[in-house]
């Protein structure tokens, strides 16, 4: 149904005049939009789960307003959830929705511009009172002034029919109003031929315990919506999407923050050291704290610190004691932690800093996504203060890179940054659940004093790491700190040569980690006209764009950096095989700067700083532009 990149059939357009029965399409992008109080996130999540469950690949993009609930019905109060479900391997939540559900005028106003021409627009008739439209800033009724003429509009009395459906239950008026998201979901289920039983089970789960009384009314509303759609036959077509061909195994839908939390627990199992998480709440990282706080029975200890500095300090203290010391935050919090991270660098302690990046600078756009903290991670401290940096590429990949972060930290005894972002954190995808018993173990020796004294800054010949000697080890008592240390002995040293030695040693530990990280893999041909090189959550959009362009015959490949300091060993080689290199980033060109400085390659950037992920088409257009210029250049 989607026509991203133009390679798939634009089903809506081609069949909108069609008759009854089902139209089969490759994928559908649907966006649920309403007021923050309308339960759009829940609706979206349920429909996503269901889509995955019935066999589609999925990718999701929630978008919610700044932190406080704005007054109902206003533009800042609009919350939305976009889902792309498909019969093929997809990478992004999609550029333009095929279907937009808008539960009030504000939701319509904010989201309409994204709806694909000819797309399906489901409105809640009951919410288009004059007052509502005024709140949304409409001076005329958009349903009547022609602005919706390019779409298939279904203007349904959602509130009233739904209220009637739950009339005979014990719900208060307010509770009854809240069921309309399930009513809407019922309509959507009808449209895409989804059986309701699974969703009903989910409703039972959500409304259990003290809220059990709400389960039945919500099921009622769900069925009412389904039946309403079936009865009124308002829709010209219903659609089905085929099943995707995913590798076999057990799947779940996974968001980035959930994957991050579980990945860190997995790291703790793989390394055999307890996890200690200290954090100060901050959007969009708080959920990692919430997730890990539930896991006391894993021996995971969490602490809500008084601020970010304290959280970093606590993580360092835990690392000093032999635990996996983890602290998580977003950009402004990293700024505060930077002095403490310097201490961990000099003390050579394994600590992981998870940064779920958001729109900056300063408080910026707290609920929006951005990739603008890369240079902060790499160079944002006083002195020559290197850190390893890894960045997951998809929501599910957060799991893997969380494990990697700690594997590198304990192997090289140095702080590691884990750079996620708001898009990864809240987005989701189907995730093949790994077997935790099969995750590679990392064996880090914890020296005992039994075989005599070991100097605290002696070096592992391969990694140059110092031994992780923890308090409680009889015979190995020693003192460390933030003043420059003498190599081997760890004593305070003001010696000039030693300082240079140590400065270089700390850098070479980080650079040396290249031996522990995989080479870059190229998607597409190994050489060619253009390489699109990305990092972080842009993977999906880049892949999709490159696949589209390749399908059109362009000589373009892509590759993705999940390790940003050091770069994989074959980076120069890979760059060298392409005539041009494009680095798309949600910043003004930070990775591009690093690559140019290091490899002296004239890299082109595609930069977007709008608090939103890339659309496939944006990257695709840039590819065409670059390749056509070349063609012209060559021709001209």
């Amino acid at each position, binding site marked *: 149904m989607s026509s991203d990149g133009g390679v798939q059939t634009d089903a809506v357009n081609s069949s909108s005049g069609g008759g009854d029965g089902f139209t089969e399409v490759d994928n559908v992008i649907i966006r649920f939009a309403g007021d923050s109080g309308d339960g759009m996130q829940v609706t979206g999540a349920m429909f996503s*789960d269901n889509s*995955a*469950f019935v*066999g589609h690949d999925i990718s999701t993009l929630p978008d919610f307003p700044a932190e406080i609930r704005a007054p109902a019905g206003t533009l800042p109060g609009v919350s939305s959830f976009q889902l792309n479900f498909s019969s093929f391997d997809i990478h992004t939540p999609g550029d333009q929705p095929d279907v937009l559900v808008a539960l009030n005028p504000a939701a319509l106003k904010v989201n309409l511009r994204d709806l694909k021409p000819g797309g399906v627009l489901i409105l809640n008739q009951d919410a288009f009172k004059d007052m509502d439209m005024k709140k949304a800033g409409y001076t005329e009724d958009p349903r009547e002034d022609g602005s919706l003429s390019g779409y298939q509009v279904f203007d349904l009395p959602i509130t009233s029919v739904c209220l009637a459906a739950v009339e005979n239950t014990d719900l208060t008026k307010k509770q009854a109003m809240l069921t309309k998201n399930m009513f809407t979901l019922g309509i959507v289920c009808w449209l895409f031929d989804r059986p309701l039983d*699974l969703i009903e089970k*989910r409703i039972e789960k959500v409304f259990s315990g003290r809220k059990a009384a709400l389960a039945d009314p919500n099921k009622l509303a769900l069925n009412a919506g389904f039946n309403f759609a079936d009865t009124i036959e308002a829709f010209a077509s219903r659609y089905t999407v085929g099943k995707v061909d*995913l590798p*076999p195994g*057990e*799947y*779940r*839908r996974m968001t980035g923050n959930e994957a991050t939390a*579980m990945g860190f*627990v*997995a790291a703790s*199992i793989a390394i055999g050291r307890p996890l200690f998480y*200290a954090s100060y709440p901050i959007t969009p990282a708080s959920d990692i704290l919430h997730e890990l706080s539930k896991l*006391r*029975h894993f*021996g995971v*200890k969490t602490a809500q*610190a*008084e601020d970010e*500095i*304290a*959280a*970093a*300090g*606590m*993580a*360092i*203290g*835990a*690392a*000093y*004691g*032999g*635990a996996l*010391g983890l602290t998580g935050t977003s950009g402004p919090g990293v700024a505060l932690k930077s002095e*403490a991270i310097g201490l961990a660098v000099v*003390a050579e302690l394994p600590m992981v800093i998870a940064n779920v990046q958001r729109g900056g600078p300063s408080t910026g756009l707290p609920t929006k996504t951005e990739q603008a903290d890369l240079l902060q991670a790499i160079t944002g401290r006083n002195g020559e203060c290197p850190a390893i940096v890894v960045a997951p590429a998809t929501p599910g990949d957060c799991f893997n890179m969380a494990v990697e972060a700690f594997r590198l930290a304990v192997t090289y005894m140095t702080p590691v940054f884990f750079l996620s972002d708001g898009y990864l954190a809240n987005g989701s995808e189907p995730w093949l*659940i*790994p077997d*935790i*018993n099969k995750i590679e173990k990392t064996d880090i020796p914890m020296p005992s004093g039994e075989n005599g004294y070991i100097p605290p800054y002696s070096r592992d010949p391969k990694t140059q790491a110092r031994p992780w000697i*923890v*308090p*409680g*080890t*009889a*015979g*190995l*008592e*020693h*003192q*460390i*700190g*933030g003043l420059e240390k003498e190599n081997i002995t760890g*004593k*305070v040293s003001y010696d000039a040569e030693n300082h240079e030695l140590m400065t270089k040693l700390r850098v070479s530990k980080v650079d040396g980690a290249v031996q522990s990280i995989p080479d870059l893999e190229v998607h597409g041909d190994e050489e060619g006209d253009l390489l699109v090189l990305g990092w972080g959550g842009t993977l999906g959009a880049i892949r999709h764009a490159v696949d589209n362009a390749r399908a059109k015959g362009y000589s373009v490949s892509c590759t993705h950096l999940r390790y940003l300091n050091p770069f994989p060993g074959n980076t120069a080689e890979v760059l060298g095989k392409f005539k041009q290199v494009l680095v798309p980033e949600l910043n003004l060109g930070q990775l591009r700067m690093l690559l140019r400085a290091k490899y002296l390659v004239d890299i082109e950037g595609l930069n977007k700083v709008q608090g939103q992920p890339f659309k496939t088409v944006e990257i695709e257009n840039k590819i065409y532009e670059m390749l056509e210029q070349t063609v012209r250049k060559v021709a001209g």
Partner: protein
Amino acid sequence: MSEVAEYTRKDFAAEQEVRWCPGCGDYSILAQVQRVMPEICAETNQTKENIVFISGIGCSSRFPYYMNTFGFHTIHGRAPTIASGLKLSRPELQVWVVTGDGDALSIGGNHLIHALRRNVDLKILLFNNRIYGLTKGQYSPTSEVGKKTKSSPLGSLERPLNPLHVAIASEATFIARAIATEGTQMRDVLLQAAKHKGSAIIEIFQNCNVFNDAAFDAFAAKKNQTEHTVFLRHGEPVKFGKDNEKGICIRSEHGALEPYVVNVADVDQSSILVHDEQSPNAALAYLLAQMDMPEFPVPLGVFRNIKRPSYDELLDQQVVTAIKDRGAGDLNEHMRSAETWTVS
């Protein structure tokens, strides 16, 4: 070495040459801590390798280098956070924090407050010399109003904080005060602090002979102590003077609530304040901490010592209970706690 050994003072002296200015009050504190450590280990059933000293930055914060235990000289003001992280993840360790008046109350004020209110089982030694020593003599948050220093050539305009008041407002469960040069008093409060389960903070008056010489002499000099200090003892009346001839009473009429000094001989014995370090109510400690030169003797000893579960204990209990209630975590299971489906 896992059973508790008999230690001597020398076991706690690091090889590292001590590098404070000659005459600095820090030397006495170091000597006293090294001297009392064997006793502390014996009484708290600890081995030396389980003792950790964590400090911030300042002259005082060089302390860990001179103790032959595990030690971590961290960054300015943040020692309580690092110590908390260590103690929470390794509750079996005995964690000491060494800090200065600037480190603890200027840049580190917030961490101190929060460590105390959480009742993390840390032993915090606050070396108060009422000056920034390491940065060569600027006024500190405990310096008196009007103090002329390099950064306040016309006199400081800031009212000092009373570290004990801060500790009380932070709900600290053990609060004490000592003079660096008074070995017996120091021994006593150090030992009690070590035995206390929960946050313990000791303010130690320490002379910086280079940048703030003789700051405490008016009461802390040997010759002035009898008349100008009073050592608090739990359950005993608060008396001082050469023959304990003076005492403290409390006036609490109409809105007034204040101590006054009496001649013991002149008053009904029962009107003399009896010190109760265990009072659940901190008002008494607050009042005592207010007493200062010249009208009052400066109180020393333990102001507050109350029982309350420590954060590290409670956190450990949450883990134990969670495992008991839900079974030891199984990640394979946890990963499947959401809806799952199988592709074949």
